[in-house]
């Protein structure tokens, strides 16, 4: 049994220690907002926060997540998350939407650390998140819009 803290709640899961956090979230805890895209940390669809830092849940073994605070798209909250989600909605960023949980988790982490990111900062923080629909221009615009909204 592994005890995980997910979105502020302790959850005991009976899984092998090497089971990636991704599958714990999706298959054991029914938190399906975190997506499976590649399984090798190349696409970012499974991005969650571990103690506030973005990590790829597909490459995070369950036992390594014990003792940390995990936040998923279902639990992300606060000023930055609200601003990011509001800007995403305002600019209609999504197309198929499958990658967007991960995009948003990465964007929230970026803006939490850096309230006024440059284009280079955005490149560095967001290049790990693939969008096959290529919604990238709106992702960039939404990050800037959220930064502006928080600064206002």
């Amino acid at each position, binding site marked *: 049994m592994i005890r995980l803290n997910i979105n502020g709640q302790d959850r005991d899961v009976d899984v092998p220690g090497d089971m990636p956090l991704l599958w714990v979230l999706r298959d054991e805890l029914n938190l399906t907002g975190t997506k*499976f895209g590649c399984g090798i940390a190349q*696409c970012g669809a499974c991005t969650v926060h571990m103690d506030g830092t973005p990590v790829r849940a597909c490459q995070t073994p369950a036992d390594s997540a014990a003792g940390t605070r995990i936040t998923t798209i279902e639990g992300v909250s606060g000023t930055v998350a609200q601003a990011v989600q509001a800007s995403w909605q305002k600019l209609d960023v999504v197309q198929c939407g499958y990658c967007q949980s991960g995009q948003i988790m990465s964007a929230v982490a970026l803006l939490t650390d850096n309230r006024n990111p440059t284009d280079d900062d955005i490149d560095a923080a967001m290049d790990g998140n693939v969008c096959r629909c*290529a919604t990238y221009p709106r992702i960039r615009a939404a990050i800037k819009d959220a930064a502006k909204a928080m600064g206002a």
Partner: protein
Amino acid sequence: MLNQLIKQAAADVASPSRRGFLKGAGGALVLGAMLPRTGFASEAAAPKVVGPADPRPQAFIRIAADDTVTVLVKHLDKGQGIMTGLTTIVAEELDADWAQMRGAFAPADGALYANHFFGIQGTGGSTAVANSWDELRMAGAAARAMLIATAAARWSVPASAIAVEKGVVRHAASNRSARFGELAEDAAKLPVPQNVALKDAKDYTLIGNPSLHRLDHVSKTDGTAIFAMDIRRPGQVTAVMARSPRFGGTVKSVDAAAAKRVPGVLEVLTLPMGVAVVARNTWAAMKGREALTVEWDDAKAEMRGTEEMLADYRKLADQPGNVATDTGDAAKALAGAAKVVEAEFVFPYLAHAPMEPLNATVELTPDGGCTIWAGSQFQGVEQKVAAGILGCKPEQVVINTVWAGGSFGRRATPDADYIAEAVTIAKAYGGKAPVHLVWTREDDIRGGRYRPLFLHKVKAGLDASGTLVAWRQSIVGQSFMIGTLFEGFMVKNGVDATAVEGASDMAYAVPNLHVDLHSPPSPVTTLWWRSVGHTHTAYAKEVMIDELAAAAGKDPVAFRLEMLKGHPRLQGVLKLAAEKAGWGQPLPKGKGRGIAVHESFSSFVAHVAEVSVDEQGRVTIDRVVCAVDCGQVVNPNIVEAQVSGGTGWAIGHALRDEITLTGGLVDQSNFDGYQPLRNSEMPPIEVHILPSTARPTGVGEPGVPTAAPAVANAVFAATGKRLHHLPFTRSGMV
């Protein structure tokens, strides 16, 4: 060309309607709208409809007592925004308030929801808006008339004195009003009017309105949108499948002992298409598959690599193929040409790799049928295939279509491939539990159904004045139509229309044009891929035209315009893109500007790309300008997104993507080897939409064909180097 699908399939897939669904669903009141019998006849430029000649009762609109209006959307929304677009069309004619509108995927029911272009229920070929434009406007207008008639009767006033605005039905003289929800139950009892007046485009308030948000803009930003991957049925198990690493290989022997020892693995099933590992969860299923030992029989497998295939294609290209078009005498005109330009183009296999890997959940039902949850794109085919596997009637196969995490063509297959796998596994598992079949990314990248590998040889001639007089093109590549239910319709005289579209019917005035085609078979499976044949034909055409302009000493825009007389819409986008891009304004050394224009899926698109090439040959795309004419725009915000996204799609693949085979084995396996475009690589892009009230046409695919040739032509302008072999890395670009 997909637009021409499919009479045979229509006859083949006769699914009795299940209108009971509509009546009973969720306690909602259903307003069934019968299509007026005038059908499409009132429209001068109506599409060629393959579907029922006599319009049948349709049901697209559900008005609930809580005043919500739900539009049943018969097309899969895989990101292209069709749920929003089709809901908008109904809302406009209904004079609804946008806030009361909802969308829901329609059930699988060919009698009600066939795509009129295909004759079966399915999404593809950028047809969705064009296909639903008339029927949903008429459904909305009929529903509005029924609401008015109900209010008129209730208030004893003439219908003509009643107005509808933003979801409120009002009789001004008596100051009475009612909301839709108050009228819907009685309205549904009225006969459906057979003649309804449709709005004039100038009166639209919702269609063309840039401020309408997508219906999925909230659920896809808070993690609540449910994709097929997220379906969780009580007691469901997960299956992954081991498939032959070589295309055409079959199972010879299986040692499942180690797999069965993996904790969580429930069963290992040897099936015609591979070996399925069924487990309590996805991780266990994946671990179980890793522990399998399978010996494959390669007797009928593709053993060649792509280099060997290309060598074979080159030989074929020099032999006469099946003739797609033959106007004038291209050989003679080439012999007499003042200048001849020749090129060989290579287009690699490409995977669709939608973000959501393929998956479906299947639950067997006690009546011998099943219920399927999937990002279902070809419900008409899938129902029939599933029924064939289970030995039941197609109508015993219930398909719940859910949001799809991309497709780009992959989820629509003539044999319902992954759905067939899921149903086969569920059957073999004996109905003990609902089965969720999951493809991993490796399964996807190595799983075939690729855009075919294509080789083109093109030879074109100019006369002494620099006028194009001859064009001869030989195209070699697999057909994904031959051997499918679409063959009879799509393959004529040995020519698969989807392999030559955009080439054999090119708009440029060429008096002597010859295009032929070889379709060499291979066990490597191939499929339509966002914009289908235009993915390669538009590239070859637009890069060649650019070379011819250079050879003629003419400006690439002027040269094209000269040859596009009689094609005002192509001219329109070409001129607009050129103007917005500042065509003709000088650029510094090391920079170049390129243009391309093309018609696909009845839409017209031009791209201008501006690039910088540094001393090491590194290309940066500084700016892309795009002009699109897709007729009446339903949602400009979504059109912009689709064309911008299509541009990124095209450029991303052109830069470096290819699926290659060595000894029949796929060299790539995931996003490390098949590298998707990333945020920092997306160029700034402007999309300009030509205002139009012409019939709406698609935008999901037409943004793709011209983006890569525009970049290639810009690289030429900057460096003098031609990019004939895709991806660009194969032509020496980094």
